[in-house]
């Protein structure tokens, strides 16, 4: 983080790899995250993109937003496609065929393409140890198809397939912990990032891309359309997700956990939830349950990171808050 913060004007490329003119919604956090991520690497990159928002907004025959060699095939297979690209370059280089040296392979997908339908292909590619970087742009639902819940949708959130109602509080399950799943593959580099911390994001992407072997970076990307939040709160919401502990920023380098930010105290999750229409229906009791869970997970993470920060403990801890709408 320090590196970019100091040298940013000189170090960041002016050239856009993900150029203007795409069709993302107003205030799209994901488009911002993609733009930043690809500024953190050179031009010697091949991108394998899953079906999803970023594929749809960036491509339509005969146009493209990309200034890098880019391939989109299907929804669930980008890690496998990236495996093929990486293996092909390895073979062709070894056999003396004319391909550029040190080409980096980057796979990218949304949370659905990563934690649901693409999880098998991703797990296979991580396990096989391909030298590639996987970027998950997590906007916490299937936004491209109209805001349906995914396994990355947070507990209680309203989506079109997890609507709150008499018998429903909204999303009934807890957000799948994808970075932990990636880390469980014992790959050299795993990190979480958010567009609201641009230098941190770029540093992590650069580190991932330059790490030999597989790297996985999970990037929270605020989606005003799906989160039912004003477009001018995109950056703020990303910060609040981190400051409340709902989306902690950390790295796992060769199995060693490291928190990216020192936070003396977590803000209450309510500060984050109340700005978003998708959580509007939640009762204080439910918010209490979320608060407890977030603290529990955050403390677990601090333990893993052997981080000396003060453990989270909310004042309003009830221990038996009832889950209800």
């Amino acid at each position, binding site marked *: 983080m320090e590196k970019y913060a100091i040298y940013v004007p000189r170090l960041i490329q002016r050239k856009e790899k993900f150029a203007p003119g795409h069709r993302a919604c107003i205030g799209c956090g994901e488009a911002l995250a993609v733009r930043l991520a690809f500024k953190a690497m050179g031009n*010697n990159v091949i991108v394998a993109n899953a079906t999803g928002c970023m594929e749809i907004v960036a*491509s339509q*025959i*005969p146009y*493209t937003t990309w200034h890098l060699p*880019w391939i*989109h095939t299907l929804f669930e297979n980008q890690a496998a*496609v990236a495996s093929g690209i990486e293996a*092909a370059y390895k073979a062709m280089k070894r056999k003396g065929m004319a391909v550029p040296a040190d080409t980096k392979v980057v796979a990218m997908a949304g949370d659905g393409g990563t934690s649901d339908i693409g999880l098998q292909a991703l797990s296979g*590619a991580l396990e096989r140890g391909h030298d590639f970087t996987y970027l998950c742009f997590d906007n916490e639902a299937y936004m491209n198809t109209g805001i349906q819940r995914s396994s990355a949708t947070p507990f209680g959130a309203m989506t079109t397939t997890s609507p709150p109602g008499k018998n429903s509080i909204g999303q009934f399950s807890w957000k799948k912990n994808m970075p932990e799943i990636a880390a469980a593959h014992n790959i050299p580099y795993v990190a979480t990032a958010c567009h609201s911390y641009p230098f941190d994001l770029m540093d992590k992407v650069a580190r991932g891309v330059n790490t030999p072997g597989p790297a996985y970076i999970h990037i929270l990307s605020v989606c005003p359309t799906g989160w039912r939040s004003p477009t001018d709160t995109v950056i703020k919401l990303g910060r609040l997700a981190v400051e409340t502990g709902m989306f902690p920023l950390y790295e796992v380098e060769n199995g060693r956990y490291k928190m990216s930010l020192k936070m003396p105290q977590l803000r209450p999750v309510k500060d984050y939830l109340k700005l978003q229409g998708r959580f509007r229906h939640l009762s204080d009791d439910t918010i209490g349950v979320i608060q407890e869970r977030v603290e529990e997970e955050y403390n677990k993470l601090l333990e893993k990171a052997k981080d000396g920060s003060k453990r989270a403990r909310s004042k309003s801890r009830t221990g038996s808050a009832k889950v209800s709408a």
Partner: protein
Amino acid sequence: MTTRVGIEVSIAIADAVKMANADVVAAYPITPQTHIVEHLAELVANGELDAEYIPVESEHSAMSACLGSSATGARTFTATAGQGLELMHEVLYVASSMRLPVVMAVANRALSSPLSVWGDHSDMMAVRDTGWIQIVVENGQQAVDNIICAFRIAEDKRVLLPVMVHLDGFYLTHVIEPITFPEQSDVDRFLPPNKYPLPLNPDKPVAMGDFGPPAIYTEAKWAQEVQLRASKDVVLECWDEFGRAFGRQYCPVEKYHSDGAKVLLLTMGCFSETAMVAVDNMRKEGKDIGLVRLRLWRPFPFEEFRQAVKDADVLIVLDRAISFGGPGGAVASELKAALYNQDKKPEVVSFVGGLGGRDITEAGFEDIINRGIEITRTGSKNEYEIYGVRE
């Protein structure tokens, strides 16, 4: 000097891929394809084939890895069977639509359920609309020759389409046959290096796989269709040149005593060799029977097929897959369609048999032919007959 050796057909296919000097093999094991990929893994492990072997976690990823690899311009091979081909299904469309010259051996296998590892053509028929070139072989020699041809056809700039080489599971994959291997230098002359025109390369960025709105989708699909149909000329050219270089000639519709015969049997795959014996037996008895076999399933060889059956009165077709609730076997159905607007055409009688590894013997083929002739006289209330079923 060529060498003739006794060798398991699966092993021979892997050796053919080695002779083609593939760069990437991505594969997932499935019976009865396993011996092909096992031997490829061995060749790579021993350094006999300088390639990357990607042991993927599913067939879906096998074909997906092939997309990525092929898009960089690397020569790419995989093999699968039955359920594996079905799991690849949506990826197959992408390979052909994006014009990626992947070569795949398919050890034809029945589809679940009930689970069956044994052979029939259900898998091959289920992927006939995926836009791949589909070549069907009957013995080990044809398999080896056509794997080499497949790379040349697929990577030809006039084609740039993926190719499946179909061989029957177990009946062909697991038998030991005498196979003549060409000299490596001759293969190198016959099969030029892969020069994919617009590969994924940072020196010259391209975007592959954009989405197509209604204003362009029809044109994209039509371009693909025109290309697949046009590929037939290149397939024929390749087979002719192969014939000149190696002395074995392949045709889209192979004929056996069929010229002038009034009754024709049509088969695909290795059962054809049994059918030949049945035809021999019946001809010895003075019956006017011939055999035609489809070698090229896609693009469908309309002209050659119509030509081959034009003088016959009866065409008996054996399908090894059921098109459930439909007109019978997929092959018979397509052949009928191909003949429909012809002035002179044989009566088509459709049989389905040989499902899930059920053998059809010489006597069986004689039964089918006799029953077929009978049906043309007496008629049948069924769209097709199923051969050898216990009811």
